């Protein structure tokens, strides 16, 4: 499902109880209470995740899939249980459709190298949108540079929304893949994935979604979407860095060539030949980030323990509050107002560069992102050098939005 979760008959989400799980939210910066609004860059981690990683490392740790000893079995069980948590979180049909990666970037690079690379000839096309993060642009540029692939760009509307028919119109006889974000890291736009997948499949074209933001804020059901590839990253999902996952349909994974070579991903190695392990092991060469995988599994179970619709309602309230306040400033221009967008808010401030603004907000304890957000194609599309971005997590509050707004007024006083 990519539709907003239903809002009816829900208990409101208890944000104060949730905050208590995040020690970092109690700290100060420059003597001011931390207001952390850079969640689209990376989310903070609840104690339950940090404790689970520490306990696993302290008491149950060994390498996975290797030894015959007791701890090796324990660690392997924990690692594979984390894979099952990922499967459950995105409702994949089979646990072997989940490949652990370093993060979303590696997941997309894996698809580019192992799936699309061998299938692309000069003149073949890859359809992208102008709001992609560089991690969903550069791997396809590699195929352009090295194999002559052609990148076909689908533009977003002025409000940041993406029309599924515009994507369909870009698909031609030589299109080999549609690669697009589930949710823009700059605009907050949520794309009509299910519709796009259906339109692409009608032409026999597979679809990859960059779910690094989408998986955090939307309920993901890869079977319902019928999507071919879905990439996610752990550290934005309240989990650790260094771990992410690629979902790929079983048939795709079976047909894909290996990515990195090394231990774990082989069946047999001789002087003259090698045979490869079945997926997902085929794509997990070397000792994986075991402790991080365990942390990711716990993070996803933690997030799933909430009523996700209530969390989404809370985040949308914060977005509406901040949007109203910033729209009220006659010197700020919000970029990205697509209907149904998620809890990310980018804006440009008249006469103030985003870095100057962010520096002043920082001294008020307010952490925001300023810059191009690894989306230079989108910056060019909207003719801005950089924007200030506010992005919400489940632990943010209305009071924090108020602190942000008063810090914005102060910045205006200093710089305006």
């Amino acid at each position, binding site marked *: 499902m990519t539709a907003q979760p239903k809002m009816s008959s829900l208990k409101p989400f208890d944000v104060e109880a949730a905050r208590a799980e995040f020690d970092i939210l109690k700290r100060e910066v*420059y003597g001011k209470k931390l207001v952390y609004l850079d969640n689209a860059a990376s989310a903070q981690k609840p104690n339950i995740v940090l404790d689970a990683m520490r306990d696993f490392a302290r008491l149950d740790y060994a390498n996975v899939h290797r030894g015959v000893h007791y701890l090796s079995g324990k660690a392997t069980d924990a690692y594979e249980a984390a894979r099952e948590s990922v499967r459950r979180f995105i409702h994949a049909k089979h646990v072997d459709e989940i490949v652990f990666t370093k993060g979303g970037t590696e997941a997309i690079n894996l698809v580019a190298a192992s799936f699309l690379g061998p299938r692309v000839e000069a003149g073949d096309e890859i359809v992208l949108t102008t709001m992609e993060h560089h991690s969903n642009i550069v791997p396809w540029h590699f195929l352009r540079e090295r194999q002559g692939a052609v990148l076909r760009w689908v533009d977003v509307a002025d409000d940041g929304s993406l029309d599924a028919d515009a994507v369909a119109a870009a698909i031609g006889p030589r299109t080999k893949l549609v690669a697009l974000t589930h949710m823009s890291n700059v605009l907050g736009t949520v794309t009509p994935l299910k519709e796009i997948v259906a339109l692409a499949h009608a032409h026999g074209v597979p679809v990859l979604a960059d779910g690094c933001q989408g998986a955090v804020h939307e309920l993901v059901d890869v079977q319902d979407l019928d999507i071919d590839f879905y990439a996610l990253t752990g550290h934005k999902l309240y989990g650790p860095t260094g771990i992410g996952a690629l979902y790929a349909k079983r048939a795709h994974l079976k047909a894909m060539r290996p990515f990195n070579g090394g231990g774990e991903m082989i069946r047999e190695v001789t002087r003259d030949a090698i045979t490869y392990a079945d997926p997902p092991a085929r794509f997990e060469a070397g000792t994986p980030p075991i402790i991080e995988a365990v942390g990711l599994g716990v993070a996803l179970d933690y997030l799933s323990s909430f009523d996700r619709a209530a969390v989404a309602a809370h985040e949308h309230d914060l977005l509406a509050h901040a949007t109203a306040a910033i729209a009220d400033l006659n010197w700020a221009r919000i970029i990205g107002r697509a209907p149904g967008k998620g809890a990310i808010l980018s804006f440009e401030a008249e006469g*103030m*560069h*985003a*870095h*100057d603004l962010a*520096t*002043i907000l920082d*001294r008020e304890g307010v952490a925001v992102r*300023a*810059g*191009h957000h690894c989306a*230079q194609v989108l*910056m060019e599309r909207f003719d801005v*050098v*950089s924007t200030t971005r506010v992005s919400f997590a489940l632990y943010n509050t209305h009071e924090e939005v108020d602190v942000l707004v008063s810090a914005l007024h*102060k910045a205006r006083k*200093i*710089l305006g």
Partner: protein
Amino acid sequence: MMDESLRELYQEVILDHSRHPRHFGKLAEPNHVGEGHNPLCGDRVKVYLAVDDQNRIADVAFEGKGCAISQASASLMTDMIKGRTVAEAENLMDGFLHLVKGEDASEIAADDRDHLDVMAGVSAFPMRVKCATLAWHTMKSALEGGGTAVTP
């Protein structure tokens, strides 16, 4: 109450330079041109120099887009290096880099220091040092034959 270091960073002279940059634009006949780019924030600056046969910077101009710190620093730099020899400009740059990093900048002559001191507040904001140094690195790369300077 305004944070003292913020007041120092965004003092009136800085804001004035960034709003009304000196020597902003192109030179008709530059013999050294450099482009600078800060890939982290997307800021860009282009520096034009006309160096005469005495190795003196007869004229200078810059254009670019960026934050108040980068624009003010570029503007101030053009004021400071115009009329100086290349060697003097490079020495001034060394001193400036020390100053904004909060290091010993005693090599800067006293009357130069009076002008450059407005940038000293940057040293309290380590994340912003690159903004202040971009134009200077670009000036140096222009003198060394062009190419794109990228803030290190």
